[in-house]
C-alpha cells in the first residue's frame, strides 16, 4: 500500500466521519413554560421529539437511474447505473454504482462502486467526496472529489475527479435534461464526458478527452417512481483511447438501441 493511498483513505474516512450532524444540542431549552405545569422531564422528552421530527428527519432513497439493455451491432450490454442515499437536508451518504454485464459472454465487463459523503453547499448543489472502488476490468481504488446538482436552465450535472492509488488523475462529467412531451412522457437527452490527465496503458486509455457518450431516452412515467423507456446511445472514443480500441480490434465509435426502466423508491 502506497503512502498516497493511505493518505487518500484517511481523507475519505475523515470526510465520512464529519457526517453525523443531526445530534440535538444540549443547552437552554428554546421555550419551557409548560415545564412548570407538566414537569421538566416530560416536556424535554416531547420537545426534543417535536423538534427532531420537524426538520431533521433522515430519508432513504434508492434509484435505478438506467437499468437497460444496450443492443450494439456486435454485442449486447446490460447496464445498471444506480444510486442510493441516506441522510438529511444537508448531509447525505451516497452510494453510486455502475455495472456493465455482457450476457453473451457471461462476463462482468465493468463494475464500480462509489461511497460518498455529500454536503449541500448551495440551494442547488452538493459537493461529494469519498472513495471509488473498481472491481472490473481491474481492481483499482480512487479518491473522489466532485459535485452534483441542478444548473440554471434545469440541467442536472454530476462531475467528479478521481485520483487512483497509482496516482492517475481522471475525471467524468454527466449532464441530463428533461423535456416534458406530456405530463408522463418525458424525453431525456444525456451526455457523459470522460477525461484523463495521463495515458493509462493497462486501462487502454489515452490522455485528454478519452470518450464521449450521448443518449436520448424516451420514458413513460406510469408512476413517477416507475418508468420504462426506449432510446439510443452513441459512444465514441478519442485520441489514443480510440487507437487502443482499434488495436484491440474494437470499434472506436458505436451506436446502440436501448430498452430499460428507470425506477426509484
Amino acid at each position, binding site marked *: 500500500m502506497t503512502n498516497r493511498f493511505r493518505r487518500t483513505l484517511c481523507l475519505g474516512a475523515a470526510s465520512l466521519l464529519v457526517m453525523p450532524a443531526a445530534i440535538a444540542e444540549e443547552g437552554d431549552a428554546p421555550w419551557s413554560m*409548560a415545564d412548570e405545569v407538566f414537569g421538566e422531564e416530560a416536556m424535554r422528552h416531547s420537545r426534543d421529539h417535536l423538534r427532531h421530527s420537524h426538520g431533521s428527519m433522515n430519508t432513504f432513497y434508492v434509484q435505478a437511474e438506467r437499468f437497460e439493455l444496450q443492443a450494439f451491432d456486435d454485442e449486447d450490454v446490460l447496464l445498471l447505473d444506480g444510486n442510493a442515499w441516506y441522510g438529511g437536508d444537508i448531509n447525505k451518504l451516497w452510494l453510486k454504482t455502475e455495472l456493465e454485464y455482457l450476457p453473451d459472454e457471461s462476463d462482468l465487463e465493468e463494475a464500480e462502486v462509489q461511497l460518498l459523503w455529500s454536503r449541500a453547499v448551495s440551494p442547488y448543489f452538493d459537493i461529494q467526496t469519498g472513495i471509488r472502488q473498481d472491481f472490473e476490468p481491474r481492481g483499482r481504488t480512487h479518491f473522489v472529489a466532485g459535485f452534483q446538482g*441542478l444548473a440554471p*436552465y434545469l440541467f442536472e450535472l454530476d462531475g467528479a475527479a478521481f485520483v487512483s492509488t497509482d496516482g492517475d488523475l481522471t475525471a467524468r462529467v454527466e449532464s441530463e435534461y428533461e423535456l416534458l412531451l406530456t405530463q408522463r412522457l418525458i424525453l431525456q437527452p444525456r451526455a457523459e464526458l470522460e477525461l484523463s490527465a495521463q495515458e493509462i496503458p493497462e486501462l487502454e486509455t489515452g490522455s485528454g478527452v478519452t470518450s464521449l457518450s450521448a443518449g436520448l431516452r424516451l420514458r413513460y412515467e406510469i408512476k413517477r417512481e416507475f418508468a420504462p423507456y426506449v432510446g439510443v446511445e452513441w459512444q465514441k472514443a478519442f485520441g489514443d483511447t480510440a487507437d487502443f480500441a482499434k488495436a484491440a480490434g474494437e470499434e472506436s465509435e458505436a451506436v446502440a438501441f436501448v430498452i430499460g426502466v428507470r425506477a426509484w423508491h
Partner: protein
Amino acid sequence: MFNRRHFLGMSGAAIGATSLLPAWARSAAHGNLGLPTLTGTEFNLDISQFPVRIDGRSGIATGVNGTLPAPLIRFREGDDITINVKNNLKADTSIHWHGLLVPFYMDGVPGVSFPGIRPGETFQYKFAVPQSGTYWYHSHSGLQEQVGHYGPIIIDPAGADPVAYDREYVLVLSDWSFENPHRIFAKLKKSSESYNFNQRTLGDFADDAAREGFGTALEDRAMWGQMRMSPRDLADVTGATYTYLINGHSTLDNWNALFEPGERVRLRIINASAMSIFNFRIPGLPMSVVASDGLNVRPVETDEFQIGVAETYDVVVQPERAGAYAMVAESIDRSGQAVATLGSQPGLRAEAPQIRAVPTLTMKDMAMDHGSMSGMDHDAHDMKAMDHSQHDMGGMDHGDHDMKAMDHSGHDTDGKDHSGHDMGGMDHSGHDMDGMDHSQHDMGDGSEMQMHAHKTGPGVANTAMMPVSRLDEPGIGLDDVNHRVLTYSQLRSLDMNPDMRAPDRELQIHLTSNMHRYMWSFNGVKFSEVKESIRLQEGERVRFNLVNDTMMPHPIHLHGMFFDLVNGGGHHKPRKHTVIVKPGEKVAFDVTAEHVGDWAFHCHLLYHMHAGMMNVVSVMPKDGNVPTPTSHDPHAGHDMSSGKMDHSGHEGHDMPKDDPHAGHDMSKGEHH
C-alpha cells in the same frame, strides 16, 4: 327532544353510503336536515384507528370516536368545558383546539404546550373561552391530521347571534389519501414534484408560441429555467393522490344538504385539509360572508373565495328557487375538486362543474414584478415623510420615531388597501443595519427593495426582492374569473377591535424554502434548528411582517391569540387565527400579547410544518409567573391538581352513562 347520543355516538342507525359518520356529517338523504342547536359541557373523545370507505375504496383512518370527520363539539360561549381524550392508538396523540383562546397548557401541542397523550392514557382538557363562532379541532401529533383526525367546533354566542338564519350546516373540507402520509412526505423529500402532473409541456409551449410568438414563449421558458423554478408549482400534494372531501364525502359520495326555497341557510365552512387550499363557490348562488375564522365580519356578498388550510368562513345563502346547487371545493392547483349538493329535497345530486384551467404563476409571484408597482396610487400618502434615509435605523430601537404617527389605519377612509405601501417604510426596523443608507433602495415610486437579514444557504432558494401587499387580490388563479371573488381587503370586523394601539415594535418573518430539496422554514431556520422562541412581553402590541420568499401561498397560523390583519380596516380590521400569505407578498398583522404562554406558530400546510416551517411564540409573563392550572384559571376555579373533579354540575348530555373513562383528573394526563 333530540337524543344527543345520536349526535356524538357511534350509532350505526344512519350510516351513509360512505363510512361511519357523525350525524352532522350525514347527508340530508340520511336524515341530516340541518344542525339543531344543542350545547354540552362534557365530551368524551376516543382516538383510534378504524376502517373507512371513501369514493368506493376502503382505507384505514386515525380519528375520533370512529368517524371521519370527527364529532361536532358544540357548546356555549363562556361555559366551562371538559373534554376527556382517550388514546387507543399505539402512538402518541393530541388535540389542538384551533382558534380557541384556551390557557396555553390546554392548547394541545406536544412539545410546546403539553407532553402529548401517550398510548392508553386519557388527558382531560378543561377550559372556558370568551368567544363564539365556527372553529375546529385536530391532532397536532405526527401526521395524524392527514388521516382523519379532525372535526368541527361550534360555539354558540352567549348573547344574541347577529347572523340570522333558518337552517345551518357545517362543511368540513379535507383531502384524503390512501397512501401513508409518511410515505407522501418521504416522496416529496426524494422528488419534490412527485405529485405535480400540471407541469408545462411541449404542447403548452407550442400553444404559447402560437399565441405570443416563438421568441416570447422561449424567453419565458428560459427565464423560469434560469431560476430553476416551475410556474406550475401550485400544490405539493395533489389530486394525483388526494380524494377531496366535503364532510367525509367525495363527489361520488355526494354529500347533500337541504333547503326550503327562500330560507336563509348558514354554511360553516372549515378547511381541515392537510395540504389543500380550496376555491369555494356555489355556481348560481351568491354567498354573504358573515364570519371569518370564527369571528363576525360585516357581511360581504361574493361568488367565490379562496380558503386556506385551517381558515373558516361562515356564509349565508338564500336560494329562492327549488333545485340542486353544487357546492364546489376546487383545489388551488385544479387537480381535483369535491362537490356536494344543496338541494330542495334530500338526496339530490347537483351537476358538478368542469374543473377550470390550471393557473400559471407570474413574476409577481416571485416578488420581482416591479412594473406593477409604479402604476399604484401613492397620492394619499406622503411617502417622503417616511423616508428612512434620514433616520438612523439602529436595530430594533425606533428611538425618536413616533410610532403612533405611523399608524396608517387612521388614514384609511376609502377602504382601499394601502397597507403594503404605507408600512413599507417600517420594515427595516427588524434588521440591524446601522448606518445603512436606505435611500438607495428607494425605487422612485415609493416601493423599496426588500432587505433580507435572515439566514440563507441550501434551504433558501429565493428571496423576494420587491414583495408587495396582495390583500386586494383574490388569490392564485382567481384574478380573471368572471364573477366576484372575496379578498382579504374586503373583510371588516363587525365588532370594533379590542386593542387599537399602534404596535410598540415590529418583527420581520420571512417564509423561506427550497422546493427542490423540499426544505421549508421561517427566516431560513428550520424548527429543528431554532435556538430561541420568538419572545413577546405580556401586554405589548407587536406587528408581525410576514414576507413570502417562496413561490407558494402559505396559510400561517398563530396559536393562542387572534391577530388584527392590517388591511386598511381602521378599527375594524378582521381578526384571524390563520392568514394566507401569497407568493411574493408582504402581509402585516398586529398581535396584542395578552395570553401568557408558549404558542405554536406555523404554516398550516402539514408537510411544510413537518419539514420545519414552524416556530414558537412565547408570551413572557410581566410578573415572571407562568400561569398553571392552580394559579390561573380565571373562568372556573377548578383545582386541576387536586385529583378530584366535581362533575356534578355537568349534565353530560351527550355521553353514554357507562362511559369507561369518566371522571379523569389532571394527574392521568400527566406523564410521570
